[in-house]
């Protein structure tokens, strides 16, 4: 958990922004740019997981739920935009005369949809988090509960075929807020929005981590009960991190829809939720860039290795979990610090961990 000096992190985000927003569109094919857009969506969700899990100690294994809220809100809007005045085609067969389900109606409005993408996860995570944290549900319980929630939601969507498209999901969108999605220029625009949102999320957690709230969050992670005796309600501290991470997942989900062109319950269920965590673990759960880069790496692995060597990819993914967690609990982002530690051989000269050193400088400056 190396703590970089603030300006180093900030310029890192800058470099990342240039790479994503300027370099990538120039050098990548449409196909790979679109894939990169998809990885950005996962990365946005991963940044949130890094905040909740890496810093807050809440292993959210059901981030798919919030990913779904954003994704389905967006998909419903795009479906209606495509269908125009008609009832979406997939609904017709099961009950040709029934009108559009009531909860679809407001999603005709672009404004409502955007609002829903932001507010739905905040409300759901707020209520859920409040209930769980106040009752001091944590650790493995929290992880399993959130995972169960993701499974339940995925099953519910699968079984409500007329209302949600079921297992097949929603797809075949023609427009994105008035832009024709088939137009390569508009595809580029969608990509740029996703990439920019990722940068914004990184900036947000950057500020979180360097703030006092960031320290309080770590304190809550390590000794929740003790925080109580300092006059804070740890439930509130965790709630903030949880809600923010849910919001990020929702944003990731919302952008996933126009980029990938389809959303299904499988993207939000157990396996998908765990895959998001895999990226975060790979990159480094508590670091700033780790979660985003890890999620992108896993996405890329899936697209490329999963393509050339599908059986092998499953094994690699499995081994990735094992090797990273076992040997690099702080992810690949902890590698530089480890190498640095190896070079400085004598422990007597180096009694305090890197964290303390950085902290000291921060105080003195």
């Amino acid at each position, binding site marked *: *958990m190396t703590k970089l000096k*603030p300006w180093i992190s900030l310029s890192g985000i800058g470099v990342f922004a240039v790479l994503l927003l300027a370099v990538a569109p120039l050098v990548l094919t449409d196909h790979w740019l679109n894939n990169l857009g998809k990885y950005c969506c996962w990365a946005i969700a991963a940044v949130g997981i890094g905040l909740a899990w890496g810093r807050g100690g809440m292993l959210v294994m059901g981030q798919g739920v919030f990913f779904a809220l954003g994704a389905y809100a967006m998909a419903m809007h795009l479906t209606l935009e495509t269908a125009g005045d008609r009832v979406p085609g997939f609904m017709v067969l099961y009950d040709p005369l029934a009108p559009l389900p009531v909860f679809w109606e407001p999603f005709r409005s672009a404004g409502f949809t955007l609002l829903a993408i932001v507010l739905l996860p905040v409300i759901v995570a707020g209520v859920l988090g409040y209930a769980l944290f106040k009752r001091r549900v944590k650790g493995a319980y929290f992880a399993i509960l959130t995972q169960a929630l993701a499974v339940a939601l995925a099953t519910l969507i699968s079984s409500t075929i007329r209302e949600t498209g079921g297992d097949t999901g929603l797809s075949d969108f023609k427009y994105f807020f008035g832009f024709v999605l088939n137009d390569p220029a508009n595809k580029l625009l969608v990509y740029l929005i996703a990439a920019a949102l990722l940068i914004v999320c990184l900036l947000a957690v950057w*500020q*979180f981590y*360097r*703030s*006092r*709230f960031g*320290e*309080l969050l*770590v*304190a809550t*992670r*390590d*000794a929740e*009960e*003790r*925080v*109580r*005796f*300092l*006059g*804070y*309600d740890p439930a509130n501290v965790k709630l903030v991190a949880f809600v923010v991470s849910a919001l990020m997942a929702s944003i990731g989900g919302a952008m996933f829809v126009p980029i990938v062109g389809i959303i299904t319950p499988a993207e939000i269920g157990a396996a998908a939720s765990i895959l998001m965590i895999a990226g975060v673990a790979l990159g480094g759960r508590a670091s700033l860039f780790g979660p985003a880069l890890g999620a992108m790496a896993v996405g890329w692995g899936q697209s490329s290795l999963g393509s050339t060597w599908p059986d092998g990819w499953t094994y690699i993914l499995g081994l990735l979990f094992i090797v990273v967690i076992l040997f690099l609990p702080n992810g690949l982002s902890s590698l530089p610090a480890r190498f640095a530690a190896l070079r400085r051989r004598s422990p007597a000269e180096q009694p*305090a*961990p890197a*964290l*303390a*050193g950085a*902290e*000291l400088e921060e*105080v003195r400056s």
Partner: protein
Amino acid sequence: MTGASLVVTDLRVEFSGFVAVGGVSFDAHPGEVRFLIGPNGAGKTTCIDAVTGLTKGTGSARLGDEELLGKQVHKIVRLGVGRTFQTASVFDELTVLQNLDIAAGLRRSPVSLLRARRGVDPSIEQALEETGLAGELATPAGILSHGQKQWLEIAMLLVQDAKVLLLDEPVAGMSHDERTATGELLQRIAAKRIVLVVEHDMDFMRRFATRVTVLHQGQVLSQGTVAEVQADPQVQEVYLGTAGAATTAAMAVVPEPLKPTED
């Protein structure tokens, strides 16, 4: 609220039928170092648990006009009641400075939480001086020694500006000189605050207590000055030892041999 006293009246705590504290009353005032002693299992820690909201209790515990019982832990803390634990608990991953900064954060606005810290708060600097931890500013608390952690806990109470400090065996594991230093620190602190100490170190108690309450089996056995309490035959029997003064001396600076040993 400066000058308010802590008044505990008829405090009772039960654990599924077992009465751990059965109607205890005592009070503590600013300016004194109040000691709570008694045999293991007498209910001392449980009293503190109840006053700080960790355990449910009945009766009353008032700080000035505020009733503490029935409030949530963090609300009680915000009223100015701080405590330490029999086994020190600090945030291992955070440095001494970060630990103290969090403790000091209570009075900050939520918005300021979102900003990064700049420099060291004067109250933190002062607490570091008081507890002799100034040199450990950047040390992760997890690698402090047992005793240092206890000082850090006290320092956290200081920056928290607690009006009531409930200290559960604060000098356990400290060497003689460290105990002296801690005792003197408590005396300084007590000038403006209520300090209640649970301890088994009778030497320490004799040197620093202004008044003592003795608990036994969840009841107040005796109350008074150190001399009064020591002279109480009941206290001698259940706590200090039947030999009274003699056993107490075993804890003293120069002990008498308990029993000759043959090598």
